[in-house]
């Protein structure tokens, strides 16, 4: 029992990271832009958030927790949106190939974060922002002390709950608002959207930048909460970024599916560590690597099933990955 609770408490924060990544990417993809730069953007967001908090903590006389929170969140979102803007400019205005641009952005984001990260590390193998970490991982007083129930539901920082709120908001935005309808039209059939008076370029830019902003929060959450506010040159964020992309497909581009899909991915990812103790068995080392592959395997299966069922609602936006030329009507 104890192992299961620990498993869930590990899976939820893990799920939260990829939930942000996947929600941002869903917004982007709804506009027809396939941004494979999510890992890079999460790197950028995580680094910018950490760096701003780290510098503030170490330089301010009386660092204020709230200021630290706002500062790191704003820096994270701005840096991520900048990444989205680069991608947008290349693919929307210059009509560069989306796949190549996205992959380049991933490399770029990681490179930038690791390069500037060196200045923060100053030769150490890691460095920390304890104040920011304490803010981001602050639990709800009272509720988190309710034993197993409190541990499962109330032992996380505020970003974990915000993620669910954002998912619900996105769901309503896509399905209940005029802007959401127009955004989906842009991703499905930009020529039709154009003929209906929708500014396709504007929508694509906005969706790409806002989407990148949301994705970036995933990186911030990873560094300042999940990773206990420690910055070290680790490739973990990249792996999580790819998982977020897989989650978008797994959730068939629906924000509500992303919520449970993210937690499921978290449970599957940590399967290798907790399942043996739950079942009381021991496994070989190489098995654990195979098991942590499960989320990707599940995504592949989901994709095969949705393709075979041919239900149009579960398919990617029809013009995903394609640049829009008005002249080519």
């Amino acid at each position, binding site marked *: 029992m104890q192992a299961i609770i620990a498993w869930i408490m590990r899976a939820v924060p893990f799920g939260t990271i990829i939930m942000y990544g996947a929600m941002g990417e869903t917004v982007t993809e709804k506009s027809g832009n396939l941004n494979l730069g999510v890992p890079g953007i999460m790197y950028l967001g995580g680094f910018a958030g950490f760096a701003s908090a780290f510098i503030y903590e170490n330089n301010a006389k009386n660092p204020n927790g709230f200021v630290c929170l706002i500062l790191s969140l704003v820096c994270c979102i701005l840096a991520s949106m900048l990444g989205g803007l680069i991608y947008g400019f290349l693919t929307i205005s210059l009509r560069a190939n989306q796949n190549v641009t996205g992959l380049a952005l991933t490399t770029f984001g990681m490179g930038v974060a690791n390069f500037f990260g060196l200045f923060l590390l100053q030769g150490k193998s890691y460095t920390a922002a304890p104040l920011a970490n304490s803010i981001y991982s602050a639990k709800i007083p009272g509720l988190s002390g309710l034993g197993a129930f409190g541990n499962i539901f109330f032992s996380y920082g505020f970003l974990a709950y915000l993620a669910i709120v954002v998912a619900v908001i996105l769901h309503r935005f896509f399905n209940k608002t*005029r802007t959401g309808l127009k955004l989906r039209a842009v991703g499905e059939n930009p020529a*039709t959207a154009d003929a209906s*008076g929708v500014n396709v370029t504007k929508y694509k830019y906005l969706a790409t930048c806002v989407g990148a902003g949301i994705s970036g929060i995933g990186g911030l959450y990873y560094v300042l909460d999940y990773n206990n506010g420690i910055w070290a040159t680790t490739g973990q964020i990249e792996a999580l970024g790819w998982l977020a992309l897989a989650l978008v497909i797994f959730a068939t581009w629906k924000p509500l599916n992303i919520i449970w899909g993210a937690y499921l991915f978290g449970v599957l990812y940590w399967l290798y560590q907790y399942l043996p103790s739950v079942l009381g068995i021991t496994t070989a080392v190489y098995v654990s690597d195979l098991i942590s592959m499960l989320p990707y395997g599940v995504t592949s299966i989901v994709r095969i099933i949705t393709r075979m069922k041919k239900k149009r609602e579960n398919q990617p936006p029809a013009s995903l990955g394609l640049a829009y030329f008005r002249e080519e009507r």
Partner: protein
Amino acid sequence: MVNEGVKIMVHPHSVELKHITKTFGSVVANDDVSMNIREGEILSLLGENGSGKTSLMNMIAGIYYPDAGEIKVHGKVAEIRSPKDAFDLGIGMIHQHFKLVDVFTATENIALGLNESEKFDLKEVRKKAEEICKTYEFDLDLDQKVYSMSVSQKQTLEIVKVLYRGASLLILDEPTAVLTLQEIKKLFNVIRAMKKNGKSVVIITHKLNEVMEISDRVAVLRKGKYIGTIHTYEASESLLTEMMVGQKVELNIDRPTPKNIVKRLEIKHLNVKNIYGLEVLKDINFDAYGGEILGIAGVSGNGQKELLEAIAGLQVTEPGASITYYPQNSDDKMEIIGKTPKAIRNAGVHLSFVPEDRLGMGLVGSMGMSDNMMLKSYENGHSIFLDRKAPKELANEIKDELGVVTPGLQTPVSRLSGGNVQKVLVGREIALSPTVLMTAYAVRGLDINTSYTIYHLLNEQKEKGVAVIYVGEDLDVLLALCDRIMVLCGGQVNGILDGRTATKEEVGRLMTSHVTNLEETAGEDDVDSEIYQTEPSKAAAEEVKANE
């Protein structure tokens, strides 16, 4: 003007066009066109392919802007620079290619184009749209997703979309081209209902029987020029045909007398259905002979493409058809149906089809001339490496003989001008010394000189004993070049004429008179609705409903 100075509430003319000219590059689409659309009438805009019907209407709908001339709407000069401007003036156009989002419901598609200032309320939109459907007796499920709709339902949705925005003038671009007879009748009822409700309707068409059936007046365009408008009750099919095709133009194209003609192809009972289950070719029977040019006339989209593709092995045919090929060097007959396109090609039946975008079929735009030659020969030879020499020589030969203007053999063909691309395409097929050569729209978009080069090439092939099948658009050329002319209309052979004696009017009439008239099919309702029922999209619609 008697009424000068007097304010009239309803202007007799919904739209007036004055001296409208529109050019695309060197092509004149509309040349000094002046005409008008009256309030509350159904006007047919008649003309052959490329006569400028659609581009003229696109100017009213705000897709194009005229180079010269002015447009008056309800008596006032109007600047229509975008579809939105047109909507604000109460003008809505339904294009041949529907502008709908597939995964949206009908209601969502209607809501997509609505004004920002209104509150976003899908239920309200649905209610209003339902009222419109009731008023005009439309058969439309507003909660249905577009992808599960039939073509006819999509068209109805487009009409509702336009009416929802309050259009008083509706322009329909070839609305019947994709419909079954049953659906056409439904559409005509809709159009009549719109007229009853005071709307003006323009139908762009080239089908004479529909013109006679539905419209109050007919305006005719020919080669971009306005010919005239007459009342339908004064019109007859022969008069309209004459207005449409005009007088014969003498062209100076050689036509050597056929010698040693030998039967090469025998087509019997050829039926082809398209993906919607509509018959696009109905019981086609004809022979093609070596040593002659067989012209195929018809408004494009009447089965030409399917016919050529069926012979080339690219179309699935209905059972019962037979295409027999008599090869040059043997007495064996060969049944083409069931053979792969490659086997048919290797036997000597070649197709060079010039689609509207020219490059789409047959050439790879990003490859050079010699690489494009190789597309047809890469399997020759036994080495695992490609033989680059032969294609290069062939490319050089074609370049010199046909005068292809290109910076080099490796220059991507997409960078060549249209005429040169076509020379490469036709030249490659000819170079492989075919027994049967099929060309479609070989001179599409070419200037006169290049066109003559192509005619000359075809004549050369004919004199070599090749059976040439030439699908063309220009009647004058068909009459001057071909030995026999087969006229296709609605997927049927309406007649095979002698190219030397046929008149332009004869061909024109056969091109536009659909064998099955709308009135005559009144008793066949059951048959048609059966076809309608078995449409795959209909079944899909039900499946989707069941899932939800």
